[in-house]
């Protein structure tokens, strides 16, 4: 068997690791497909966390971190059991699959066909070497390859002179996942790594549909999934995300926030699951961290009934992120290679004179990603849906927060950041396209809701 296929097959480890948690009956309404995908997401977070912890402790990787991750998932399942004795969930996920009898099934199939077309386009672009990210060759791949060779996070390699471009402090999940596959396959397969773009986009679509249909009619869930997937496929093809961290980040961000938009968000178990996925976002890319903070704060503010008790909800949503980020920052500090995340300027220094150039460069970058359609169409759909529902304020608020964070990050650059924006803006703004699609779905929900509030 070729190493590329073995490397891809290694991803089967993650749903196995996450299975004990997602086997709890409270998650049953999400359906088998979504549960497998959500279990994989949790599994990846747990495996990455244990791999980083092993590296921090100075232990080499082998089968042990995977076994430790399974033990962690079993412990989390115990926590969920303790929170919700079976059959007494205070806010069970509403299974709206029966609603499909009232909805036109043709609408569902049309939406699924559009989703499938976009996924196939992403796959074709990847296989044709159209969308490969330069970052795969520059730092994600080399780091994963080296970590797999030495079977740990190689601090000496990260701190080596002339290798500063490896972005030493970038969170570890993507390199850990890539490295584990490389250890199993015996080498790092560059071509197979690009397939994580269609793979994670498919996983996002499966999880999104399974999650959203527990809240409202399957036709609306299918349509929201089609809009999200199509926008992300187009922006991903144009901004060359195959093989980099964006597909991971988007998967964790979108699945987490989708869970919090369902009636089941009032359940501690679902909040804990969303917290695990948010930790995945924070462990995938630096901008995952402000996303987690924005989601947590806005959920606590906007969903006071569901986020009750607030302390417990806050803990479930943010503790996994604090743990995973804490272990990573402890690794950097103990090895004296980094002491936090770095920007491209001083934290308190903003170069407002660059603002016109920044807005122009962002507009240009978005235009070059499918004529800005991945952003304009979801925005248009939100506008046509009328006054946003209360539930829509969560994705809209997070989108606004992330846009502000990214603008301020660009404003911190002491030199004109136009070139930097040209290669990064479409990618880093892509979660906003998905958040707009989810906000639109929330507003359809307002008028036609049939599930529990």
């Amino acid at each position: 068997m070729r190493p590329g296929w073995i490397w891809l097959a290694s991803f089967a480890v993650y749903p196995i690791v996450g299975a004990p948690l997602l086997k709890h009956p409270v998650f049953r309404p999400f359906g088998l497909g979504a549960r497998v995908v959500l279990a994989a997401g949790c599994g990846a977070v747990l495996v990455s966390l244990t791999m980083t912890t092993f590296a921090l402790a100075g232990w080499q990787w082998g089968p042990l971190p995977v076994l430790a991750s399974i033990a962690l998932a079993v412990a989390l399942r115990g926590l969920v059991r303790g929170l919700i004795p079976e059959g007494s969930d205070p806010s069970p996920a509403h299974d709206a699959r029966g609603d499909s009898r009232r909805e036109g099934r043709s609408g569902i199939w049309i939406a699924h066909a559009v989703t499938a077309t976009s996924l196939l386009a992403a796959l074709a672009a990847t296989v044709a070497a159209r969308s490969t990210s330069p970052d795969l060759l520059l730092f994600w791949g080399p780091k994963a390859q080296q970590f797999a060779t030495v079977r740990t996070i190689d601090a000496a390699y990260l701190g080596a002179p002339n290798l500063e471009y490896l972005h030493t402090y970038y969170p570890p999940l993507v390199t850990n996942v890539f490295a584990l596959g490389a250890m199993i396959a015996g080498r790092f397969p560059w071509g197979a790594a690009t397939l994580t773009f269609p793979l994670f986009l498919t996983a996002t679509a499966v999880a999104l549909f399974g999650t959203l249909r527990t809240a409202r009619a399957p036709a609306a869930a299918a349509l929201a999934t089609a809009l999200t997937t199509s926008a992300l496929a187009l922006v991903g093809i144009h901004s060359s995300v195959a093989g980099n961290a964006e597909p991971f980040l988007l998967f964790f961000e979108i699945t987490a926030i989708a869970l919090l938009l369902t009636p089941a968000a009032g359940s501690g178990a679902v909040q804990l699951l969303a917290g695990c996925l948010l930790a995945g976002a924070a462990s995938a890319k630096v901008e995952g961290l402000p996303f987690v903070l924005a989601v947590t704060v806005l959920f606590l503010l906007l969903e006071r009934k569901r986020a009750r008790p607030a302390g417990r909800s806050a803990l479930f949503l943010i503790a996994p992120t604090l743990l995973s980020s804490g272990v990573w920052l402890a690794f950097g500090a103990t090895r004296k290679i980094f002491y936090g995340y770095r920007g491209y300027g001083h934290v308190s220094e903003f170069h407002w004179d660059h603002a016109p150039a920044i807005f122009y460069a962002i507009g240009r970058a978005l235009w070059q990603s499918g004529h800005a359609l991945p952003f304009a169409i979801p925005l248009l759909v939100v506008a046509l849906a009328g006054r946003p529902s209360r539930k829509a304020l969560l994705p809209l608020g997070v989108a606004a927060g992330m846009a502000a964070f990214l603008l301020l990050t660009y404003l911190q650059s002491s030199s004109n950041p136009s070139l930097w924006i040209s290669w990064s803006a479409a990618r880093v703004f892509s979660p906003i396209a998905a958040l707009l699609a989810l906000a639109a779905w929330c507003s359809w929900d307002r008028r036609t809701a049939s599930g529990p509030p």
Partner: protein
Amino acid sequence: MRRAVLAALAGSAVLAGFAIAALPFSRGLLRVPRTPYDASEAAFTAPAWILLERAESLIPRDSSVVARVEPADANTDMFLHRFAVALLPGRKIVAAALWGVPTAPDLLAEAEFEIVVGATRSSPGRRLVLSTPEGSIWKRDR
């Protein structure tokens, strides 16, 4: 509300259509690419990728290697250093340039192997290991 739902469906279809239109049909969609970058915006890296991939089986581990371009260009050399770090694991990669600044020639001379992207002529003190349309691989005499 119906307008918004129809707009979402039509919009999704438009986005999917644009995604298909973005595929590199002119290159032949079913043609197996030589490198993961063949049809990407970083297609200029393909010759270096091919040469470095060939070098992987020819240059022993623990050897020192320098990768550079002809005609000389410090910016391209900086990226070739990074590509060599990625594609030649286990070798000591000597940078021909860093951050656009060329490395001193005496430091380059320490490398046992030299990978040259682009055309180059034979010169004393080194022996040709491989020549391809993308460039050549040389072993320095010791």
